[in-house]
């Protein structure tokens, strides 16, 4: 995913908007909690009704939330209660899946903690904005910058 912050030409510079160049190769995207927090504060990200919306230009991108930060069971995918140390999650695994090998090799304890929002982009928008080999060529970036300049966004 390639985004760019576009600033107003003031002193100090003020964020005008965030531009999107491509949304990556797959519709799935995990946004870190830190990015979401700062984006919500800056006004270019909103959360609601099961959707995460990036208010980027030239058009807002609407992602469906699949998982929010927190602990999840690797066996049954259940959202587990959160505490400071993971004790409640370990208790769930011990009682509900005792002795079973974790299906997730990256989480041998049988539960994992997400520090990101797991999202998937609307398929129509993904097809429109997904990355292709052309997305990475200088020509395409130049073309995008030209379009942004035509729209009066000189920092594009």
């Amino acid at each position, binding site marked *: 995913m390639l985004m*760019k912050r576009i600033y107003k030409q003031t002193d100090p510079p003020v964020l005008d908007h965030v531009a999107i160049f491509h949304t990556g190769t797959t519709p799935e995207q995990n946004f*870190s909690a830190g990015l979401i927090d700062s984006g919500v504060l800056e006004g270019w990200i909103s959360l609601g009704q099961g959707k995460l919306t990036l208010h980027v230009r030239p058009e807002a991108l609407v992602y469906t939330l699949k998982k929010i930060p927190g602990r999840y069971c690797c066996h049954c995918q259940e959202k587990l209660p959160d505490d400071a140390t*993971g004790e409640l999650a370990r208790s769930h695994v011990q009682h509900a899946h005792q002795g079973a090998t974790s299906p997730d090799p*990256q989480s*041998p304890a049988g539960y994992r903690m997400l*520090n990101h929002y797991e999202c998937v982009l609307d398929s129509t928008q993904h097809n429109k904005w997904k990355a292709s080999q052309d997305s990475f060529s200088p020509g395409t970036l130049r073309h995008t910058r030209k379009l942004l300049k035509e729209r009066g966004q000189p*920092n594009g």
Partner: protein
Amino acid sequence: MANQIFNIALGRVAELYNRVDTNDPANSALIIVLLASTGIETDAVLKDKDDLAAVVSGTTNEATNTGYARKVLTDADIVAFAPDDTNDRVDLDIPDQTWTAVANDGTGAIGDFLVCYDSDTTTGTDANIVPLTMHDFAVTPDGSDITAQIATAGFYRAS
């Protein structure tokens, strides 16, 4: 010990991150590795290592605590590549990383956190994994979860 960039990755970190972000080549990923604190070599020695196999070839060892496993971050996992034109730099960020129920079963403490680049997670060995950055991460596991909190600006800045 201090945070540092491996010599083999100098001038390359942002581009290798971007390669993962654009899934080019397919199956490329960032690999997060924890090093055990016992036996860890000096920054000067480790900085010269050119691949992950070399990093752990001396007295330095990867953590073996129960509950620990490497993290594999693909294009969907890492934060969008976003050049900062106002400050003329690129900050590279990843979500905080949590290892769940990490035991101190005679394996000792954790000393460092590595971000590495693997061009193809489906093949190859540690000799094919390029170490990028190394960060102080001193923690003694006690069976609870361990979270590596990534700085607000990210784990690496190219400027």
